[in-house]
């Protein structure tokens, strides 16, 4: 064994300040590996929404035709709608993962390690953020190739909204796990919230055919702003201004959810 006195306790005496790349990279890599090794991730986040898109597209084609989009393929609603709905499901999976970290006791170990809180949060949340962003990228690409999703507006706008939505979903998952303490309740509430937010936001049924009360509640949901931003890019309605508004709304929601999460985490003993 090497004497403790001779091994520098890692970077114990490094100057303070900047984040520790070693710690953030180590934790990020570890979590990414766990996420990618989890079979439910590709099935729930990619397989299911693609299947749903295939089933729903003909129905949406008729619905859109009835609302005046005569030459719509149906993908204009099916692709962003299912992408939004299953990104919401991704937020639920993230919440469950954060919960498991507490159950395993590893959360306490992270807190007792030499990593700063900001380094732990980065290493813990960067992988699901990348995953959610990757999910949206794959679904929109697949939608274009498989389901003839048109893009009449700005690709940059679409990317901007997708990035902001992935951030908002990461914040939502974190806030959910911080607010709901029992894993059973988390599963139930998580699933119910996914469906409710998807429905209210116009991801399941286009806003134009939603009941009035639901349409009035819609702007309170991140899914609404995501759908609005995505469809602005798809239909070229409102252009970059709409995309920018959506992006800002999503980032504002992410900030609020993040604040709720950190407030709740701080209150735990």
């Amino acid at each position, binding site marked *: *064994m*090497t*004497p*403790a*006195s001779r*091994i520098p*306790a*890692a*970077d*114990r005496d490094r100057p303070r300040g900047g984040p*520790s790349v*070693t*710690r953030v*990279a*180590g*934790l990020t890599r*570890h979590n990414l*590996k*766990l996420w990618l*090794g*989890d079979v439910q991730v590709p099935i729930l986040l990619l397989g299911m929404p693609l299947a749903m898109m295939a089933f729903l597209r003909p129905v949406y084609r008729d619905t859109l035709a009835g609302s005046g989009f005569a030459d719509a393929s149906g993908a204009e609603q099916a692709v962003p709608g299912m992408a939004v709905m299953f990104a919401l499901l991704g937020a639920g999976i993230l919440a469950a993962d954060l919960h498991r970290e507490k159950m*395993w*006791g*590893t959360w*306490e*170990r*992270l*807190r*007792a*390690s*030499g*990593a*700063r809180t900001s380094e732990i949060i980065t290493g813990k949340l960067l992988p699901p953020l990348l995953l959610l962003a990757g999910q949206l990228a794959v679904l929109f690409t697949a939608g274009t190739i498989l389901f003839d999703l048109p893009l009449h507006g700005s690709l940059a706008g679409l990317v901007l909204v997708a990035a902001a939505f992935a951030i908002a979903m990461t914040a939502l998952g974190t806030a959910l796990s911080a607010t709901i303490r029992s894993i059973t309740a988390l599963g139930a509430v998580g699933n119910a919230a996914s469906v409710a937010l998807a429905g209210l936001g116009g991801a399941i049924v286009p806003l134009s055919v939603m009941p009035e009360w639901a349409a009035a509640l819609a702007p309170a949901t991140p899914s609404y702003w995501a759908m609005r931003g995505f469809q602005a890019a798809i239909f070229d309605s409102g252009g970059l201004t709409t995309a920018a508004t959506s992006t800002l709304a999503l980032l504002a929601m992410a900030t609020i959810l993040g604040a709720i999460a950190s407030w709740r985490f701080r209150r735990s*003993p």
Partner: protein
Amino acid sequence: MMLADPVLRIRGLRKAYGGVVAVDGLDLDLARGEVLGLLGHNGAGKTTLISSVAGLRRPDAGTITIDGVDLRRDPVAVRRRLGLAPQETAIYPDATVHDNLRVFGALAGLRRRALRRAIEQTAPAFGLDALMHRRASALSGGQRRRVHTAAAVLHRPPLLLLDEPTVGADVATRDALLELVGDLARDGAGVCYSTHYLPEVEQLGATVAVLHRGRLLARGTTNELVATHASSAVELAFDGDPPALPGATAHADGRLRVPADDPAATAAQLLSRLPADAHLTSLALVRDDLEGAYRALTADPTRHPASEVDRHAEVPA
């Protein structure tokens, strides 16, 4: 005990959960190279003490200084000077043994080659070298416990906090762990080690702190504690009235205690002299070892022979 340059210094530590006072005004110093056996019944406050030092519980009062750094002033610097193996086994079940060690090593700040070397050195010491590519969930409880403890020592911290590390460990694992703890201490680490197995503490040549209801009852070397608190004796219990025995004192529950330098010889003597009508139901030899000292220290005061005074006090004047 005042030390010049302790690796851990605790002053006036207090922590309550709601109405339950878990740690009640505790002072403790731990020297570099010292192994401290932290003893106490379940609920005595051992885990609360260890968790507070690791920054996982916020004390209500008191100061904790590690390696000269105040925990409240610079918690990150403090955490970089310690390694914690919590009471509950805490590893990633879906990751391999290697990946578990790698992530905790990285969190301790170990980079590439240093990390690889730390894993290569630590895994064999815990008998993990053949298990490196197994998922933790496929390990036995004892093997998981070894991964759990190994993850705390990878970076050779100046202060090691091990909360009941040998729970669920087999004899070989326990021996290996004790040897490792001894090595780390000889290399200069201070080790705070909570356990219910008193022979371990004697085997380690550790010093002892006895915690009882959040207070420090005793602190010293094993020999000091035994000399001060343990006395060998023979304890006898009878069905019905106990006979009069020379030098005996009575416990509250009716057991008799006869002090003896050589309990076995005294027991033989006592047995040969018991009246024919005495119904002896049990006989115990109380040895003057750490366990005897621990029992004497933590015995319920109302059942302790030394509490004659208390019982008299209850008699109305």
